[in-house]
């Protein structure tokens, strides 16, 4: 199935129409309930602009549609100059850090609304690009788009409450959640809320099921390998890790560590504050670690794996055609090669006819630089941290809990560290022992 602008036109027209209605309602809300005339006029004008865009989009004509799409030059620039994993990761990290630092401004409803409209506008303009639309509208990718917007909304909702509570705490007041302390009966208040939730979910699900057919490709064939072969979308973060790690790490050790680490959270977080209400300032360390793990290392990798990884798992720009013949030069080098060939001038190798044990010794000798690095990272760094910057943690947690926490954190940091080493010095493996399938 190949999309064309004509096929996209009805969808895009309706999309802008919905945006127009959304902004008109928001403008009316500001006028009626907030008595904010200037802002109401502004959002009504925005609604008018979207109405015009809708009528242009409904036309489906190439010439007119160019008015509601991103300029060719801009798309070419994004695909040609910005589309690589390093910039993507740096960009998303910078975006999240900015969001965090300026949270007090960003959580204001009008600012948040503006950001939402901008995001939806960018999405709409991008949808007029057939390549972009084809990937985003794949039936199994639709939930990921929904998840991105839901996560954005709920992150805003949580942050807005946390910011309010943090301001109150700074003034010496209780968090808002403590004010609403009166007891009410579960029937009718909670029971009816649940009923309404169920009806709403049923309605959304039915609408979704009627509107979008579940994907069904050709019958299974074990000889025709699709390119790219992708895991289900919620595992694409793990598949993305395969770029930087061998399957035993990306598919087994790191996922197990994620599960173990999640389970360990309540036993490692000794901070008694922030139990049962939204706050950031009272538990900044826990908050930042979790958000880094969840939003940056899990969600953005899923988005990357879904929308930007094409044939042969190559990185493609959002408007770039998925060309199976795209060639990306891979000249990655192991740490042992850096050390022995770069500094010493030869690679240690067991002499012919050496015994198994001697060969094993030679392998260890060859990989010694990497082994030293990894052992120091996982075994020596935690006590060092405990005596320096994490001294307070170490004192309050005790030896075992501190070692567990610092090792979990270091395991989590392995991924970004390996990413940066790959992008900067083309490092392939820290330890490379193909003889025992042990590459790290």
């Amino acid at each position, binding site marked *: 199935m190949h999309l064309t602008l004509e096929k996209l036109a009805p969808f895009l027209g309706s999309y802008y129409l919905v945006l127009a209605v959304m902004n008109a309602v928001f403008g009316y809300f500001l006028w009626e309930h907030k008595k904010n005339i200037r802002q109401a006029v502004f959002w009504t004008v925005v609604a008018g602009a979207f109405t015009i865009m809708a009528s242009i989009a409904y036309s489906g004509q190439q010439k007119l549609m160019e008015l509601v799409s991103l300029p060719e030059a801009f798309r070419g620039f994004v695909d040609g100059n910005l589309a690589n994993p390093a910039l993507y990761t740096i960009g998303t990290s910078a975006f999240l850090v900015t969001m965090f630092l300026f949270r007090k401004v960003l959580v204001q409803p009008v600012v948040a609304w503006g950001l939402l409209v901008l995001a939806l506008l960018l999405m709409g303009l991008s949808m007029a690009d057939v390549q972009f639309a084809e990937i985003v509208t794949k039936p199994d990718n639709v939930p990921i788009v929904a998840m991105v917007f839901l996560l954005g909304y709920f992150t805003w909702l949580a942050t807005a409450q946390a910011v309010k509570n943090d301001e109150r705490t700074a003034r010496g007041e209780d968090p808002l959640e403590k004010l609403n302390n009166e007891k009410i009966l579960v029937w009718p208040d909670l029971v009816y809320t649940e009923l309404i939730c169920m009806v709403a979910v049923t309605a959304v699900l039915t609408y979704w099921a009627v509107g979008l057919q579940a994907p069904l490709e050709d019958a299974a064939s074990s000889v025709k390998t699709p390119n790219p072969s992708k895991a289900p979308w919620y595992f694409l973060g793990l598949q993305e890790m395969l770029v930087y790690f061998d399957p035993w790490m990306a598919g087994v050790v790191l996922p197990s560590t994620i599960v173990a680490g999640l389970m360990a959270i309540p036993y490692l977080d000794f901070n008694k504050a922030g139990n049962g209400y*939204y706050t950031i300032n009272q538990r900044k360390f826990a908050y930042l670690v979790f958000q880094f793990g969840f939003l940056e290392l899990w969600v953005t990798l899923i988005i990357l794996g879904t929308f930007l990884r094409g044939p042969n798992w190559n990185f493609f720009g959002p408007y770039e055609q998925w060309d199976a013949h795209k060639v990306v030069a891979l000249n990655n080098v192991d740490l042992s090669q850096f050390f022995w060939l770069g500094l010493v001038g030869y690679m240690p190798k067991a002499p012919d006819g050496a015994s198994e044990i001697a060969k094993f010794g030679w392998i260890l000798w060859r990989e010694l630089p990497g082994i030293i690095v990894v052992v120091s990272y996982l075994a020596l760094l935690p006590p060092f941290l405990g005596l320096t910057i994490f001294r307070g943690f170490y004192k309050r947690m005790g030896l075992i809990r501190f070692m567990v926490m610092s090792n979990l954190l270091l395991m989590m940091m392995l991924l970004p560290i390996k990413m940066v080493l790959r992008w900067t010095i083309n490092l392939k493996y820290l330890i490379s022992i193909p003889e025992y399938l042990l590459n790290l």
Partner: protein
Amino acid sequence: MPNLGEVIRNSQIWKSIFRHPMPVDRRNRIVVMLTNFFLHLHPVSIKKQGIALSYTWCMGGVTFFLFLVETITGVLLMFYYRPTTEWAYMDILSLRDTASLGILRELHRWGAHAMVIAVWLHMYRVFLTGSYKPPREFNWVVGVVLLLLTLLLSFTGYLLPWDQLAIWAITVGSKMGAATPFLGAEGPGSMLLQVGSIPMITGASDARFGLLGARFVGEETLNRFYVLHCVAIPLAVALLLAIHFWRVRKDGGISGPL
């Protein structure tokens, strides 16, 4: 002359089912929570804060509701579907083209995606409100297992349509079985496990073989995943859900500031 509603509510049949008058006054609103099997999961009264939607997001409830939707649509789908390589794909095709209520598979598939998203959002909310802190540590652990089982439910279901999307996604996903340290044929250290010179861990005895029931995704895998998807994992989820809900009550009810 009594109206029909009154006649029904005064009948012996009605009274044998609902053991109290309509919950319109305070007393009966309490009694209904105590005498109705489906409602007794709830407490009788609750802090107003505990049910504020901006606080709870209702995502745990949505996840549970979607689990029920998946169970019901799943049972209906089982009427039409035979888990064999000969029939599976054909049955899915005819499900789309000939079965009445032709959106069953859509409801099931989109419901599954929605459940994965809802369970993540539930975890997100519980973390952001610090609700895993004492005394709720253990229930967080149960929740993490439920999260994992939700992903496995979705993963095992992914294979059942038996189309290209299905077998290749599972082929990619199950590669990790082969890469398991020591227990996977392509995992580090597996060659160390040998008796004499006979390797213990091969493509026909390793972790992936255990998962797939064969060296490759095939007939045995389809059967294995079908049983996992329809029986084994749902049973485990149901048990853990019961514990999860029970512990919410026992650990002090829905979370809120202490």
